[in-house]
């Protein structure tokens, strides 16, 4: 794979149609918008090395309830914009005055972004079997720019990880990750995820992680 470090304003290609994420077109040339890694495929994408999570429809995220209003839970989703979870998006029908019985301030939830409007009002939903309140396990936070690497191509990395460490893992696009399993398994999962975050920008990562897990497990038994 052809990759290169770029800074904002770098000319990436003369073909305007190759413009992908993190780029813009000016006078028929493709330029970088970000400081990050440029991927030269059909389209040229620039993956940032840092930055804040900006919610998009369909993203799975982990949030923490920070306030309750008449019909909404206001949820911190590790972003400049707060998420709104409306009472009607809760899996069961509940009354407005009973909201805090189900989700209190400080409750952690696995949720999904249902819609984002142009003023960045972020609507969340819990209407899915996979979603709901977090009652056990632990949540760790990594940079959201590393999440695609943790998931891997077509989910290859994360499914391998789930199997190898024998844990339940929910990856939020906002960089928060929920792990649930045995104490030792969780420790190993945590260590592995930290390693993936640190080496996210290197090649052949999945193979190295497999090797790392094998070694760790060997040391344990």
């Amino acid at each position, binding site marked *: 794979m052809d990759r290169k*470090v770029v*800074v*904002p*304003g770098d000319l990436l290609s003369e073909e305007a149609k190759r413009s992908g994420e*993190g780029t*813009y077109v*000016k006078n028929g040339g493709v*330029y970088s*918008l*970000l*400081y*990050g*890694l440029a991927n030269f495929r059909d389209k040229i994408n620039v993956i*940032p*090395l*840092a*930055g*804040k999570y*900006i919610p998009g429809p369909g993203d799975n995220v982990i949030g923490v309830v920070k306030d309750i209003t008449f019909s909404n839970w206001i949820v911190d989703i590790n972003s*400049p*914009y707060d998420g709104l979870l409306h009472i009607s998006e809760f899996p069961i029908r509940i009354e407005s005055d009973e909201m805090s019985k189900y989700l209190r301030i400080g409750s952690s939830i696995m949720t999904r972004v249902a819609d984002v409007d*142009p*003023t*960045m009002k972020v609507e969340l939903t819990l209407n899915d079997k996979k979603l709901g309140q977090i009652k056990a396990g632990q949540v760790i936070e990594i940079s959201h*720019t590393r999440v695609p690497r943790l998931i891997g191509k077509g989910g290859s990395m994360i499914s391998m990880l789930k199997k190898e460490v024998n844990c339940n893992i929910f990856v939020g696009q906002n960089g928060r990750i929920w792990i649930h399993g045995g104490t030792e398994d969780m420790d190993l999962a945590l*260590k592995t995820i*930290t*390693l993936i975050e*640190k*080496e996210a*920008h*290197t090649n052949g990562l999945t193979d190295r992680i497999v090797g*790392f897990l094998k070694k*760790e497990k060997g*040391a*344990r038994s």
Partner: protein
Amino acid sequence: MDETDISFFKDGLRLDGRRADQLRPVKIEVGVLARADGSCYIEMGGNKVIAAVYGPREVHPRHLQEATRAIVRYRYNMASFSVEDRKRPGPDRRSQELSKVSREALEPVILTSFFPRSVIDVFIEVLQADAGTRTAGINAAAVALADAGIPMKSMISSCAAGKVADTIILDPMKEEDNFGQADLPIAMTPSGDITLLQMDGDLTRDEFQRAVEMAMKGAKDIYELQRGALVKKYSQMVEQPVREDVHVCD
């Protein structure tokens, strides 16, 4: 003080041994602050400046927020110990002006429309001043913005030219700034679009032309250094021996 009292040149070189069109030594470090989303430390000659970028984040106070774009706040501040006579701390007329023009030098390249209802905060702290702190601040701010992952159309580089003893010089130092005839700081994109141009003192039309050209050339050189610093930060991340601190239980 009378200008004739000082000689700015000795054997064709300046007081610090530079040629007329030579920059002072520049050192740029990226990501020096752990708390900030992006940061940069820069030394340009005797100037020592640190830049911190936070954001995009929620706007406080609320009434400043814009429904369709992010606002940019830029705070230029000089430490009380940054100059020989103690600088009275806090914002004054000069630092407010510099904050405004510096913000306006950077704003045109930042894609504020990506982040409605938010703010991008840029803080510039001058630790040591030696003429040209606004240009050093802008250079540091541009690198810190890139480090924070904020989308920009291009980088911004800044450099000053001046006039001493009827000669146009690049990047005036303190003596040349204080006792010289003119100071002309600019900021621009690498493609040559100027986003800041100020002038203090007198220049003829011809001198002005030459000074702008010289400052632009200086800014281009600084751009390469900014770029180099950013690329270097990345390669350090790659080479980092990550293995050791992860293998705790061996």
